[in-house]
């Protein structure tokens, strides 16, 4: 698997798009920090970017890579290599290079700015960890979509739809159900609904740092326990891991049964 990973990774870090992605984050980091000169504001803006853009780019990148490397995959399938290794290797190659672009692209300006001396270091690390998780999750979701759809256009459409759903539509439905059922106790429901969407989950994780004062304003006991203690952090991270592992498992499972 590590050989496949190595070659996918090699292939990707030489591709133009990885650099575009990397440079985008580099530029964003520099603009936010050096033109604005305000770490707190930079972190809030970055959060919005990470929550929305990272899933979008990971999805598109993942699906494009999968379709474009069809030949590579077929070449590998005839080699004495395990199927799961081929797909896991490719997946980790894509997700790894995307994560690297993200972490380096944002990390470099922040380090240059002197982040290690500021107390925003924890917020920032949390942001990067969340970004990394979102990359892992949305890339593997994209791989799953691609694996189940031979038709590129269809697969691409589903992938963008997935992003749109997770990033916007889900929250809209969520809010509507909160408003419709507001006479019922909803705190467990709303926490549950948060957990079932990795974007919301990541957002919550960041909210725990940035907006804890507002979150603690709500009366519900379940909320209080979730946001007021370390429980929220642990549950969120656990669920993010779950969101990563489950689609990977499906990827391996489906790829084993698939004909090429």
């Amino acid at each position, binding site marked *: 698997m590590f*050989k496949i990973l190595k*070659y996918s990774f090699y*292939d990707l870090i*030489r*591709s133009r798009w990885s650099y575009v992605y990397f440079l985008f984050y580099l530029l964003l980091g520099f603009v936010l920090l050096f033109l604005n000169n305000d770490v707190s504001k930079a972190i809030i803006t970055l959060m919005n970017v990470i929550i929305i853009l990272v899933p979008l780019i990971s999805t598109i990148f993942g699906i494009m890579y999968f379709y474009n*490397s*069809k*030949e*590579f995959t*077929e*070449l*590998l*399938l*005839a*080699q*004495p*290599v*395990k*199927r799961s290794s081929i797909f896991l290797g490719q997946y980790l190659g894509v997700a790894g290079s995307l994560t690297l672009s993200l972490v380096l692209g944002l990390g470099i300006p922040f380090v240059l700015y002197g982040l290690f001396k500021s107390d925003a270091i924890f917020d920032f690390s949390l942001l990067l960890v969340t970004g990394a998780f979102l990359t892992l999750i949305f890339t593997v979701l994209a791989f799953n979509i691609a694996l189940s759809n031979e038709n590129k256009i269809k697969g691409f459409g589903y992938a963008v739809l997935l992003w749109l759903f997770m990033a916007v539509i889900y929250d809209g439905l969520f809010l509507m159900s909160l408003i419709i059922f507001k006479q019922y106790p909803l705190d467990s429901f709303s926490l549950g609904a948060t957990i079932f969407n990795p974007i919301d989950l990541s957002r919550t994780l960041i909210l725990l740092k940035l907006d804890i004062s507002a979150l603690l304003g709500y009366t519900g006991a379940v909320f209080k326990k979730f946001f007021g203690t370390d429980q929220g952090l642990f549950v969120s991270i656990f669920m993010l891991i779950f969101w990563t592992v489950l689609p990977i498992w499906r990827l391996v499972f489906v790829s*084993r*049964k*698939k*004909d*090429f």
Partner: protein
Amino acid sequence: MIHIENLQKKFGKNIVLSDLDLIIEKPGVFAILGPNGSGKTTLIKSVLGMVVPDKGNISVMGKPIKKNFKYRKKIDYLPQIANFPGNLKVYELIRMIKDLRQSPSDEERLIQLFKLEPFLDKKLSTLSGGTKQKVNIVMAFMFNSPLLILDEPTTGLDPASLIHLKNLIREQKEMNKTVLITSHIMQFVAEVSDIIVYLLEGNIYFKGSIEELKTKTGQTDLEHAIAAIAIEPAHV
């Protein structure tokens, strides 16, 4: 070498292989022929493990291939369409495959043979179809595996390269290897193969030497013989 029992494969409602049995024991060149859509490629891909059969057992070198991948080290495969990752350069691709297989190889000789030296440093996406096919051939022949599977090896080759290819196949035969070939060029098949395996509607319709086939159909050349069994399936 290869034991196939009861092999069955459907793609959707379309039955591609139905209860196919095939035993290839001795070394030699086996040509797998049949009309378009008769299941040649599916059969080959089943042996390679790229297609997962619905039913049936396949063993290669005495071991079932299910949940096994190491047996592929014993097989060299030349795919029908020479599609390679475009970002890689030719030498990188060769190095990568060597790295993956970890077997001794003699690509130098083959590269010289097909005069590929000037292309080694080029990206695969920039190569012409014929050059790609040569790279494809190099990669299939550079290892010394007991079983070779060649899916339409002649596609896009110039006459000189075609001669080299034929020589290579003969070399393998002399080395007592088993070679499976699919091709639409009957002249080529007639030149290189010992045994014809004819597929029709997902099953083996005929298996035997070229001579047997000619006798059976009463034709003097292979092309007509093949055409004849395809048209007159009543001749059993």
